């Protein structure tokens, strides 16, 4: 928009300075927690209580990180959050891949092979984006028990796939609607089949939406706590649950530096994704959130 104050009068300059001041103040508000988290995680415990939030570490140390990773006590056991970090990876990777593949095929079938009632099918599936998950927790717990998947990583993968499909289908469906149907019709005339058309025509143009879907699912599943805490046992906990247990352990001295290091460890994967692929992250956020 072209409504900038142009004339360089004193008033305009002051207004401009105020504008930047407000924006920088806001930036500080958003940065403060990250800065505090990082600074605290690098301080030895002795510096924490006497110091203040923003005082830089006098003797910076990575010991809190090492302790958070390998020794800190989460609940009963003292093996750090590293184990749970890998649990999260073991859950996230298959769940993201499976839900994205299913979403892609669904979106393709719903847009390029429309049949009577396909809009209804889409609406039916879309509802899964909106429900508060509390409403499925108890039946899910029982079903996982019947399937012999209680407290297992496979069970958590299943849960994330089941409730992720609604989102991934939505992404791919909205993306494929814009892909010219003539291409598909022509291929059909040439006798190409369902999967061949998907493989040769749709998939090659899908890179942007695959990225959005993967980032969205990755962030959602990595950051999940509710399913993790409801459906995992000690061995299979994701890192968010372990972090919460670590911070809320009531035994011993509170080691805030270790807590903050663990929080950083739990936050890093999604932060890295955000920094590397922020554009797609925002796109996923808006696409996923505008509808759910």
């Amino acid at each position, binding site marked *: *928009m072209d*409504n900038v*104050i142009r004339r360089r009068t004193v008033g305009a300059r002051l207004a401009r300075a105020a*504008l930047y001041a*407000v*924006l920088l103040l*806001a*930036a500080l*508000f958003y940065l403060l*927690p*990250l800065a505090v*988290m990082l600074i*605290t995680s690098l301080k030895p415990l002795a510096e924490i209580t006497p110091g203040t*939030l923003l005082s830089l570490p006098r003797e910076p140390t990575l010991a809190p990180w090492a302790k958070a990773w390998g020794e800190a006590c989460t609940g009963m056991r003292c093996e750090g959050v590293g184990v749970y970090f890998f649990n999260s990876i073991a859950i996230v990777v298959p769940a993201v891949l499976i839900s994205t593949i299913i979403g892609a*095929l669904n979106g393709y*079938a*719903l847009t390029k*092979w429309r*049949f*009577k009632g396909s*809009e209804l*099918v889409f609406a*039916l*599936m879309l509802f*899964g984006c*909106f*429900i*508060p998950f*509390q*409403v*499925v*927790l*108890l*039946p899910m717990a*029982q079903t996982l028990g019947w399937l012999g998947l209680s407290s297992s990583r496979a069970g958590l993968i299943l849960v994330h796939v*089941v*409730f992720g499909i*609604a989102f991934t289908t939505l992404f791919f469906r909205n993306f494929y*609607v814009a892909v010219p149907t003539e291409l598909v*019709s022509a291929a*059909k*005339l040439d006798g190409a*089949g369902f999967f061949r058309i998907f493989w040769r025509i749709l998939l090659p143009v899908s890179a942007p939406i695959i990225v959005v879907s993967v980032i969205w699912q990755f962030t959602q599943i990595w950051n999940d*706590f*509710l399913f993790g805490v*409801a459906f995992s046992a000690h061995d299979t906990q994701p890192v*968010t649950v372990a*972090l*919460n247990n670590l*911070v*809320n352990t009531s035994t011993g001295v509170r080691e*805030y530096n270790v807590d*903050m290091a663990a*929080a950083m460890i*739990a936050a890093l994967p*999604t932060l890295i994704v*955000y920094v590397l692929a*922020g554009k797609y992250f*925002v796109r996923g956020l*808006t696409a996923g959130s505008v509808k759910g």
Partner: protein
Amino acid sequence: MSLSSYAAQPATGPGSRRSRSGPLQAWLPKLVLAPSVAISLCFVYGFMLWTFILSLTNSRMLPSYDFVGFAQYARLMANDRWWVASTNLVLFGGLFVAICLALGLLLAILLDQRIRQEGALRTLYLYPMALSFIVTGVVWKWLLNPGLGIQAMVRGWGFENFRFDWLVDPDMAVYTLVIAAVWQASGFVMALFLAGLRGVDDSILKAAQLDGASLPRIYWRVVIPCLRPVVFSAVMILSHIAIKSFDLVVALTGGGPGYASDLPATFMYAHAFTRAQIGLGSASAMLMLGGVLAILIPYLYSELRNRRHG
């Protein structure tokens, strides 16, 4: 998007007749969709129904199927803790949505003034959205800890009487949830508004400027009204986040002090999973669903109407 333009259906179109494995090809799309449809029917609709049925029983530690009608709902209505949780949700949700909207709109308008380093600022404002609510809760718990966090810092600057102990104050704990949640989600609202602002037609603005309208007036009278659909989407998303808020409460306040900062989501979890009150927990989950539907249905209705008109 008109449905009729896609009316050529594979089963009757020329393509499928010529393809090699005729009937299978015609069924393939439905076969591919079938598992997802089955999953939705079972895991979403079936489970909702199941929870509803549980909410009509006297299930405690384990699900039982002795039906007691709406007794669990009556118990819920008589439960003090549920009322605290519901009131908190109204307070928390209302403030969270209102502040996010105001802050997001303000930042978007300010960022829209051809700011240097706009990209960097945008990135900074939005990054909290990438974090888990658990991380957010843990960090803010540390910042709001009266003995070590912001209160201690400000006192260290010489303001000995400064008090900011909301986290441990039963009357104020719910507002700490607002602070942390606003921190996390307002950047996202800013991004929505910024996209909306960039979509406002320049010619309308030029015309307003030629008429001699001042900048604030242009925003108030011309630009902000154009953003109504964005406001609508944002309200819908934010209230959805508010109703589902669980992790943040667990990590930041643990629902405490006592149950002063409980929300329905934590109430449900506590009763269904740790207090062996499955029936009561199910009833509270159904009421949460009702809350989501109350927001969702008007939203979908207007979306569909816009689509038909546009």
